[in-house]
């Protein structure tokens, strides 16, 4: 099977990108600088990510807000036009179909950004379950770039006459970036300030070129650093930390579940789970030692019995320690010790309060 390419593929190759298959897309896992340098560039200054593999679904209807609200856990009625939400979309049993960023353009227009790995699944789910509105899969139409880091807002501002200062975190606007009509969203997957810019796929190259012309030292960043950056913020990765068999409550995403809003798919299951109490939950931990814990490694009790699984893990370039996320019984809380089985040895770790890294606290 040939891999799909984003509009930035040739530019990424010219910049020294090392390509891998990610969800059927050919994307760089790193560039010449390497993963650690790319990660640190985002925390200290600014980095550029090609996120065109993400999916986009456009929903229109007389009350698109209410129509989408019935499919998601967070509450679109609680935000204004021009604001976006991070949310889960659940099955009737509370399991997570996907995590999404949902943009409220207006009562009659909602725009959804979803994970690359779930594009077909989400579009099928939304098409099947939405009432009173029509969903269109716009994944092929859009290219997307993320500019992230403390210097990111100033860089993006140089390319647009639209005043970005009033656009606060999780707000968005539309405007021309390097002359290309775009959606400019103050969102991201790194914890840093910055923007995600959606532009017509055929014009993406103009925006990329303009960014590098404005900042020749701009660091292109691959998927490897994208993962270490989000892990440091304990941001979930679908397929690793959340999936069809985990609920938002178990995953520590109760803050995006608004049980007081009218009915949505999964509401009664989540209410029941909340009333019964959770058996397991997703925690963040820091390893004592130098051996990294990784996805799939078993969490064991003091007496060596398996009690959970690591869902994401690896070295934290900012902390210089090994960090990870795992599902463990709810009796294990912040400050509890746990052990991860690494090739037969029970390596100790401590559960910490997330995020692992505080923005502004650079090493």
């Amino acid at each position: 099977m040939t891999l799909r390419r984003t509009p930035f593929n040739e530019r990424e190759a010219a910049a020294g990108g090392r390509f891998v298959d990610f969800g059927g897309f050919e994307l760089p896992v790193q560039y010449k600088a390497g993963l650690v340098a790319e990660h640190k560039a985002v925390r200290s200054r600014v980095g550029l990510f090609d996120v065109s593999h993400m999916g986009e679904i456009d929903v229109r209807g007389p009350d698109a807000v209410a129509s989408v609200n019935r499919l998601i856990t967070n509450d679109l009625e609680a935000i204004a036009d021009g604001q976006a939400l991070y949310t889960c979309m659940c099955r009737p049993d509370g399991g997570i179909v996907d995590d999404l960023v949902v943009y409220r353009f207006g009562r009659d227009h909602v725009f959804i950004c979803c994970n690359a790995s779930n594009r077909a699944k989400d579009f099928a789910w939304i098409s099947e379950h939405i009432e009173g509105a029509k969903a269109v899969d716009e994944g092929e139409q859009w290219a997307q770039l993320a500019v992230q880091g403390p210097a990111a807002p100033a860089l993006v501002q140089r390319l647009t006459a639209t005043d970005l200062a009033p656009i606060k975190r999780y707000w968005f606007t539309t405007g021309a970036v390097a002359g290309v009509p775009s959606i400019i969203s103050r969102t991201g997957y790194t914890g840093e300030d910055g923007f995600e810019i959606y532009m017509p796929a055929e014009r993406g190259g103009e925006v990329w070129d303009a960014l590098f012309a404005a900042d020749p030292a701009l660091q292109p960043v691959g998927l490897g650093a994208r993962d270490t950056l989000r892990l440091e913020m304990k941001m979930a990765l679908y397929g690793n930390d959340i999936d069809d068999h985990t609920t938002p409550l178990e995953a520590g995403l109760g803050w995006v579940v608004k049980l007081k809003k009218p009915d949505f798919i999964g509401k009664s299951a989540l209410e029941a789970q909340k009333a019964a109490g959770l058996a397991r939950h997703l925690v963040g931990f820091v390893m004592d030692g130098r051996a990294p814990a990784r996805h799939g490694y078993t969490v064991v009790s003091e007496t060596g019995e398996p009690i959970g699984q690591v869902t994401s893990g690896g070295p934290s370039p900012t902390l210089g320690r090994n960090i990870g996320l795992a599902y463990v019984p709810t009796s294990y809380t912040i400050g509890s010790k746990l052990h991860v089985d690494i090739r037969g040895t029970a390596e100790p770790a401590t559960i910490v309060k997330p995020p692992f890294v505080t923005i502004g606290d650079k090493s």
Partner: protein
Amino acid sequence: MNPENLRYTKDHEWARTEADGTITIGITHHAQDALGDIVYAEPPKVGATLSQGGRFGVVESVKSVSDLFAPCSGTVVAINPDLQPGPKQRAELINQDPYGAGWICRVQPSNTAELDELLSAAQYEALLASEAH
């Protein structure tokens, strides 16, 4: 790039015969470059028995865990003190100087004929050329 006086495996390890007959083992420049930033190494313990082609430890980058495969059979007589597991481990030496300061362990070989099966520098370079596309 790949020193002439070493022998190589298709799994990108190198082996050097020392004056005292022991074999020093490490991973090649190609291997460390492909791994990227190496963050952790788990060398074998002194006294461990290796068999040629068997897994004898790991080297880890940020993203991945890579098994090490023994170029030859024998007993481990030393490991690089800079790679001793613990807070002082300097795994980055494997990136910085894979044929020198980044050596992994030293083995007393049990069957020196095995070394003749390993690749020369020229053969290893031909292997790399054929793998590249």
